[in-house]
């Protein structure tokens, strides 16, 4: 397919761009295969807006006489308005945008066409390989092994080719366990807690069904992670009720009788359309410009967004608590093990592992626990808060995770190497990007699409010093401790950086941030100066002494 076929009017002049808190600008609008480009072309103050078509969540058009207006709502929650003279031009442009923003073939997406303008220092596709991770693990324990059982994605389509499993369990047993778990997602290692050797594993639900099927190998596998005489915890991210209902569909949960060494705790993390509805309601509340406090608070409450945040964080804290405080191993799963499970396992690692609070460590976490673990990004992030499609598979699971990270960051502002902007950047790229990182639903699909060969990795771009400096937290001081966030409602806030980003001017907050950076930077320079002076003085004194000795 040629993009040109979809673009009947590639360019329109005298278009007026409206954005909140900016003066309207007149300029030229151009459509390309992947971008909507607006340029003011003014000599004194040229302004350009580049918008990826894939970032467009929905568009609306209105006409007053021959003046058409297109309102574009983006997946990053921004809303812009374009006034386009000429009804035909406007209709053409609107239909082009509609078509280009809803391309159904992945290979037509921008990452397959994007050519980077920067020098690639490090290929992000190779930055976080499972073998490297496993090497780190091997240096502290020999109880685990890398299994290549899934090399051709033949055992579990949503798992990566290699997974970490207990050494004592062979591939033959794994195959049997895979038959017993939803989507073949057998329990694999998610995190090893160096401090006490306890582990967190994740999987999908066991397929016990109504007649309580069991699988000896499954029991053996997860028992292999227990210390003699110790019990472990299974954190089921579903309520007991939901878990019980799952049995009717062949799913279920681990019964006490068959897993006597495990204690099951049910948490209640919502899924799918409930989360998408929540996002839609929240964004609608944030965009409501009426000046009524009661309405705002009741809409905020009714969106349930912060309720979800609290639930997810609580479950993650519980998992972390079992591992660090109880000295117990943990298995986390929900139904498929691709959504709430990953929220819990990844957040627990941020609480427990200081490495995950560094930039590289966090990237590695996202790669391990989200991309390789098979969170279906392409489905979940197909649409955002303005979508009308209401597809069951769309859900802001990853955004909720990022929001939870932000909540912890807000409570421990000095313990993270990255700042809020880093999280916002990941949110944007998960929904629309020039990079291939978040394309596809799992490693299997990514490998079929040959993403590493055909597209650029987000990490190749981010991990260059020019970009990194934007994402560094000036307050960071490595903190090797476990960090326990508060989950009291008073401690959780609306993530303004995402949800109010386009609804209020940020000038004064940006200035405060700048000021903070300056204070810290100045101190560091001063410190460096003092150190240098002191060294100089010391050298001079030594010289003097040597001369005296001569």
């Amino acid at each position, binding site marked *: 397919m040629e993009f040109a076929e979809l673009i009947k009017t590639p360019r329109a002049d005298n278009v007026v761009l409206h954005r909140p808190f900016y003066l309207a600008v007149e300029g030229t609008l151009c459509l390309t295969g992947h971008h909507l480009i607006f340029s003011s072309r003014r000599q004194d103050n040229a302004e350009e807006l580049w918008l990826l078509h894939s970032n467009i969540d929905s568009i609306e058009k209105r006409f007053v006489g021959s003046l058409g207006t297109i309102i574009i709502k983006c997946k990053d929650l921004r809303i812009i308005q374009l006034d386009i003279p000429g009804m035909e031009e406007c209709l053409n442009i609107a239909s082009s945008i509609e078509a280009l923003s809803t391309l159904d073939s992945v290979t037509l997406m921008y990452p397959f066409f994007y050519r980077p303008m920067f020098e690639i220092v490090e290929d992000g596709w190779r930055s976080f390989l499972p073998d490297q991770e496993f090497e780190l693990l091997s240096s502290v324990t020999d109880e685990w092994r890398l299994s290549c059982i899934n090399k051709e994605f033949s055992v579990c389509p949503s798992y990566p080719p290699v997974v970490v499993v207990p050494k004592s369990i062979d591939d033959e047993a794994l195959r049997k366990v895979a038959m017993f778990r939803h989507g073949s997602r057998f329990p694999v290692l998610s995190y090893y807690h160096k401090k006490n050797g306890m582990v967190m594993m994740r999987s999908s639900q066991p397929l016990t069904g109504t007649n309580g099927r069991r699988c000896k190998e499954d029991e053996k596998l997860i028992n292999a992670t227990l210390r003699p005489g110790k*019990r472990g915890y299974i954190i089921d991210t579903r309520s007991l009720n939901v878990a019980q209902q799952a049995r009717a569909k062949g799913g279920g949960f681990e019964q006490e009788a068959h897993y006597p060494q495990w*204690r099951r*705790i049910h948490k209640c993390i919502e899924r799918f359309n409930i989360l998408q509805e929540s996002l839609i309601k929240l964004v609608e509340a944030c965009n409501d*410009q009426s*000046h009524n*406090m*009661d309405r*705002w*608070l*009741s809409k*905020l*409450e009714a969106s*349930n967004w912060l309720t979800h945040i609290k639930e997810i964080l*609580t479950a993650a*804290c*519980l998992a972390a*608590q*079992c591992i660090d*405080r109880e000295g117990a191993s943990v298995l986390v799963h929900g139904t498929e093990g691709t959504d709430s499970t990953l929220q819990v396992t990844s957040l627990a690692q941020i609480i427990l592992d200081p490495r995950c609070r560094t930039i590289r460590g966090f990237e590695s976490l996202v790669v391990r626990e989200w991309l390789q673990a098979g969170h279906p990004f392409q489905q979940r992030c197909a649409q955002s808060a303005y979508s009308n499609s209401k597809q069951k598979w769309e859900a802001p699971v990853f955004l909720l995770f990022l929001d939870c990270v932000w909540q912890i960051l807000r*409570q*421990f*502002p*000095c313990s993270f190497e990255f700042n809020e902007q880093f999280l916002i950047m990941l949110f944007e790229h998960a929904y629309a990007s020039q990079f291939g990182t978040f394309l596809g639903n799992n490693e299997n699909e990514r490998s079929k699409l040959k993403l590493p060969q055909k597209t650029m990795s987000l990490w190749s771009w981010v991990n260059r010093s020019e970009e990194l400096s934007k994402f560094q937290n000036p*307050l960071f*001081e490595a*903190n090797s*401790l476990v*960090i*326990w*966030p*508060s*989950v*009291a*409602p*008073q*401690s*959780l806030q609306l993530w*303004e950086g995402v949800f109010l980003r386009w*609804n*209020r*001017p940020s000038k*004064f*907050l940006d*200035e*405060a941030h700048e*000021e903070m950076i300056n*204070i810290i930077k*100045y*101190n*560091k320079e*001063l*410190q*460096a*100066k*003092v*150190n240098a*002076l002191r*060294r*100089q*003085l010391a050298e001079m004194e030594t010289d003097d002494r040597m001369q005296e000795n001569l």
Partner: protein
Amino acid sequence: FHTFFMLQVENVKLLDRYTNRKAANGTLYLTATHLIYVDASAEVRKETWILHHHIATVEKLPLTTAGYPLLIHCKNFHVAHFVIGQERDCHEVYTSLLKLSQPVKPEELYAFSYNPKTSKENREIGWKLIDLKVDYQRMGIPNNYWEITDVNKDYEVCNTYPPEIVVPRAANKAVVVGSSRFRSRGRIPVLSYLYKGNNAAICRCSQPLSGFSARCLEDEQMLQAIREANPGSPFMYVVDTRPKLNAMANRAAGKGYENEDNYDNIRFKFIGIENIHVMRNSLQKLLEVCEMKSPSMSDFLTGLENSGWLRHIKAVMDAGVFLAKAVKDEKASVLVHCSDGWDRTAQVCSLASLLLDPFYRTFKGFMVLIEKEWIAMGHKFSHRCGHLDGDPKEVSPVFTQFVECVWQLMQQFPCTFEFNERFLLEIHDHVYSCQFGNFLGTCHKEREDLKICEKTHSLWPFLLQKKQELRNPLYRGFTAYKELQPNTLPFSFQFWCGMYNRFDKGMHPKQCVLDHLLSCMSQKMKLEDNASELENKLPFLDGPLPSEACSLSKVGRAASKTPMLNTPQDYEGEPTPVLSNGTSAGDIDVTSDVDQKYKENLSHHRDLHDLNDAIDVLDSEAKDGKPQHH
């Protein structure tokens, strides 16, 4: 020392209502001024001090297995839940506290016995620190249009106003006196703030005694004089901060609001801020929400909404913004009143000044603002704060709301205030503490009768001494920002956890950016001294600084000064301990305490070294390539 204690009770538990940890066990003492609780179970001596004046309510709760509970609510939102072993003891503490927390005579207030051991001269200098005349001078008053008059020197015009007030020159004594007879309690229109940029003024008064049809020529002349003092505008606003319905109801009592037909060129406007009773109830509801034991998000947000608190805060802010806009953008003077003109009027006028004038966002300026709009103009602190045993219906968080509005502004404009949140909390504490004379009584005359200046101390010098910890490190200086235009959309207002859940430390961020930046500021001063000292020692300097030195500059002083309060809380939500396989809740606490101690050791360890030493340590570490133990 023990003779100071009026009462001493052993074996008292202090429950922590937020975390599920084991209750502390210790001794409770009552002194003439404080309740002191000493935790004996902790390895580090931990004391909780509660000023008797801060106690709002004391309740005896039904007997529990642990003993006799005594619940104390403080005016600074501290909630202390004690459990006392013996009923007799509990009752004795209860009755003593009732008496001690509600003095009958003003002379019994702490300020009259508080003795910071400063000289008489210093005390006097302290009281002279804030001179309102200087502030009027700053506004350019007296000038052609405005004068400072002592027409009220014997409180003949208005006994709740100060002796000196600012009125239009054109309003002669007859007009002033005439107008005072037409205003509730004689509170005539006087100047609150003059915006030098365009001569528009903010004036304040009480409601007119207009009833359904009464009018007063002098009052009309007074308003005309105010309007004409701003020749740049053909009209002035008259703002009634009450809801229209309330104002109309007042007409039946011979009070009410200005009839636009009787006054030349006024634009009359209602801004519906609710009365003191609504505000008191609203705060009560808010506090109930804050005190809920493990509420769900929904419980909390619904409770927050139902309390109406943020709606009221927004109403006050909206009114302040309206005033500031009228003055700055429309260049029109504004006359503001409510009923008596000492609650809502004080809130709105002081907020507008704060928005218009960066001076009021400095330490000194904020003190001036409070002295001027609240203390001098007769906000009835004594009644609103319940300093003395009195009518509980007079108590209302009017000043608290003002303080919160300032905090909300700080959230939106983090670089525009010289002071930080703690300054607000300190002031709020002392409005209730009665430790200083500033907020005693209800008006200037009463404080004069109490001989406040001779018998008590002023709060302001005390706060200025603590300036280093109360300053805002992000402040960009007096000239960086002029007028502020806050966003008043509902989402711009946040729940102020630092005020209403201030004593629930577990809810606050575990690392404090403010502390971090403040320690940067003090470190900066030391480093600058160091640098100049070293530069003097070195005869010459050349070449660029070695770049590797940068990596040595991360001296973790900031973090060491602020140990994290960081332990897991109840994440299971259910009262039954789910994690009870062999490990009791108490054991969890032990481990957390160990962690805490480890951290404290760490910070002590680091504190042992002077900053210079710390640098040396890092230097030597860098040379040897491995850490050294000290």
